[in-house]
Each structure stands twice: as structure tokens, then as C-alpha cells.
């Protein structure tokens, strides 16, 4: 029976409710129903990681989550990473290490890297590359991204 479902969720610490069709992905709901367009669409099939969000402490590709699955969940998107106009150390490190060019992959990389540093504050280069294997970047060649994550790890430990 076509009809919309009422979903109540928490996004970046704030209660959010929205209406969606069961066939809509969480990515579509974030961008088209809720207006949070920081989360990007690349492949729409789970491979590129541009749509990465954090749900209940785990990173997932939001193109492979249904919007209705957000009911009762706690979601973090790129919009929740900075503290007002103060950028997060990861965001500063990405900027200062030139870890982005076109930028479409960046929100996904930041959300993924943030989850990594929360559980492993001092990862090796290998651990960083392995963790970020589900995030693709066509521009940077990855080295600068890895260096930015290492730099952010240092900043966070010094803070």
C-alpha cells in the first residue's frame, strides 16, 4: 500500500522526524527529505564510501541503508563534525595537508577517519589504509589523506 512512513531519529544530537517511502535509502532521506546535503552520493551501490555516516557508533554506507531503518537510531553526519564555526582537528588536517581536491569524497573520509581515531587514537599507516579501503578518491591519490589522518591523530592526542 503506497504511503509514507513516519520516522523518528537522532541526527547529530538533535531529534529529527521525517516522512519517507520504504524504498528510499537513508542517503536519499538525508539529502532530499531532511536537507542535509553534506553526505554525498557517488556510486549508490556501497563501493565508494562517499555516503558514509555513523549509525550507533558504526560507520556504514547510507546508500545501503533504508531510511525507515533510521527509526530510533543515533546518526552522525558530516554536518555534526565541526563545533559551530570551529572545525574539527580532522577537518583542519584535511585542509592543511591538501587532502582534497574536488571534495566529493571528503565528507565520507572525515566520518570514516573520525570513527577510526575514536577507537584507535594512534593508528599505523597500514591500519589507516585498511580502515579506509571502503572510501574511494579519484583526485588525491590517497597519500595526502593518510597523512592528514596521521596529522589529525597527533593533534587530537596533543589536545
Amino acid at each position, binding site marked *: *500500500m*503506497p504511503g509514507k*512512513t513516519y520516522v523518528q531519529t537522532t541526527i547529530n544530537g538533535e531529534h529529527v522526524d521525517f516522512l519517507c*517511502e*520504504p*524504498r528510499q*535509502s537513508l542517503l536519499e532521506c538525508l539529502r532530499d527529505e531532511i536537507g542535509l546535503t553534506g553526505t554525498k552520493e557517488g556510486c*549508490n*551501490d*556501497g*563501493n565508494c*564510501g562517499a555516503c*558514509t555516516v555513523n*549509525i550507533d557508533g*558504526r*560507520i*556504514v*554506507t547510507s*546508500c*545501503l*541503508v*533504508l531510511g*525507515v*531503518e533510521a527509526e530510533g537510531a543515533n546518526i552522525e553526519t558530516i554536518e555534526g563534525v565541526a563545533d559551530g564555526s570551529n572545525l574539527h582537528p580532522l577537518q583542519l588536517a584535511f585542509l592543511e595537508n591538501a587532502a582534497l581536491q574536488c571534495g566529493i569524497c571528503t565528507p565520507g573520509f572525515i566520518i*570514516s577517519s573520525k*570513527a*577510526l581515531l575514536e577507537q584507535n587514537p594512534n593508528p599505523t599507516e597500514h591500519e589507516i589504509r*585498511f*580502515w*579506509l*579501503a*571502503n*572510501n574511494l578518491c579519484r583526485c588525491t591519490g590517497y597519500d595526502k589523506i593518510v597523512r592528514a589522518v596521521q596529522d589529525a591523530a597527533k593533534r587530537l592526542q596533543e589536545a
Partner: protein
Amino acid sequence: MKWIDFEKPNTVEDAVKLLSDSGGNARAMAGGTDLIVMLRVGHPRVNPDVVVDIKSIPELNELSYDANKGLTVGAAVECYKIYGDDNVNSHFSALNDSATLIGGTQIQGRASFGGNLCNAAPSGDSIPNMIAHRAVATITGPSGTREVPVEDICTGPGQTSIESDELLISINFPSNGAGFGANYIRFIPRNEMDIAVAGVGASVTIEDGKFTSARVSLASVAPTPLLVEEAGEALVGQPVSEGAIQKAADLAKAAAKPISDMRGTADYRKHLCDVLTRRALTTAVERAQGAS
């Protein structure tokens, strides 16, 4: 994506009822990392009108260990929970060879072994590993519950012996005594995030320097994941040696019935079965002999 109805039952009974009431038009969803992709492309075979989210059903989230009963992995348990589990790490660490290999971090946050098995891809990276561990699937339908060895589940690419009104509940791994070791490896052209050109799951039990049991199972070289019984049987009773392992690898190579496609030719895949079986058995032996 076409219209779907979404259901989220809290009990096995309700889930089975939803599946059987739909007359074949409903499918279970665990992590959705196969199902949502298929719905989006309008897959000719997997394109249900009703999606039944099974992640709220307690039995399907069970992850428990008992020295007598072994390890129970609920059908919806995500890969990250498997490799984060103390019991898995102490008693079934070779399962992590698959849990850390499926997709990347994001996919592992959603993907389950249950979904990997029910999706029945010849390349499913958990399936040969489960077969090597002699895992048994518990399946419930309208007429009751049955137990089926994992090697009897996949019947063809994307096809299983699980009926459309049945639900996979859990996968059960029997306890392994001392001297047990296992390994799963695959060959892909890059280090992660790709589909196996070939894969091998192997397990051994060693007592007094001799194999007392062994199993070899192959991925991506037949329409289904393949249990090569003769490869395991050839090892039983033999002292551990490179020669015995090579014999098993030859039998695995002979049993493989690969196709040629863009990932590799049939000959290349057969060659890989030899090399990967040798390597997987060697690692399984090392683990059995205490390197854990």
C-alpha cells in the same frame, strides 16, 4: 527502486508468517548489502515486494559459545561483531579471515555471514570457511525447524535449498578440540574490496604429528562453493608433510570446475586452487600447531 513494503518483526514466528503469507514475494533482509543493491537494479530473481528486516529478532542476533555446543552465530550478526567477539577470537579465530575480508569497514558494519550464505554467490567469502569448520545451518519454516550442513545450502549461483517461506536462524560451529587449525584465503588483484577470483577454506586437526581430520572447500570455481571431500580424506592418517599437503592441493585443483570470465580464465583459476589450497592448509597446520 520500485515500491516495497517494509516489515520489522520481533519474533521468528512473525517473520516466518510474513514470508509464507506473501506467496514468495517477500525476502528477509539482514544487512541489506546484497539485497538493497539487487532491489535497486531490479534484479530478475531477487526483487521482492516485501522486505522483512530481521535485525530485531533476538535469535538472529545471538553470538554465543559453549564448550559442548560450540559457537552459535545468529543469521543477522554483522561481521564487525564476529571479529570483535572474545569467544570467536579464542576458539574460532579463523572465522575472522572471512569477517575482515567481506567488503570494507562500512560493509562489515552491516553484512552478515547469514546474508552471505543466503545470497549464495559462488564467491561468497564466508561460505568455504563455514564449510571447512563443518558448520550447520538452523532453518525455520511454517512446518518447523531443520538443521542442514552449510555445504548443502547453495544449489546454484544465487540459489539455495532454503525455501522462500523459510528463515535462516543461525549458523552453528561445532567445538574444536586441541590440534585444530583453519584458514580462509582468496586471490584478488588488489588488497581489498574485490570479488574472489578463487578462494580456499581449509581446516585440519593434528594429533601426534598426523592429520586426524581435514576439510578443503573452494570459492569462485564452480556454480556453488564446493566441498572437496577427497582432498580432506587424502590427508587423514598422513603425517604432516609438504607432500601430503601437495596431494590435497592436486585433488582440489582437479575438483574445481571454473568458468573463464573477466576475472580470470578457467586454467588460471585451476592453478590458483592448487596454490591457495597449499597455502591455506599450511596456515591451518601452523595454527593447529600452536601459533593459534
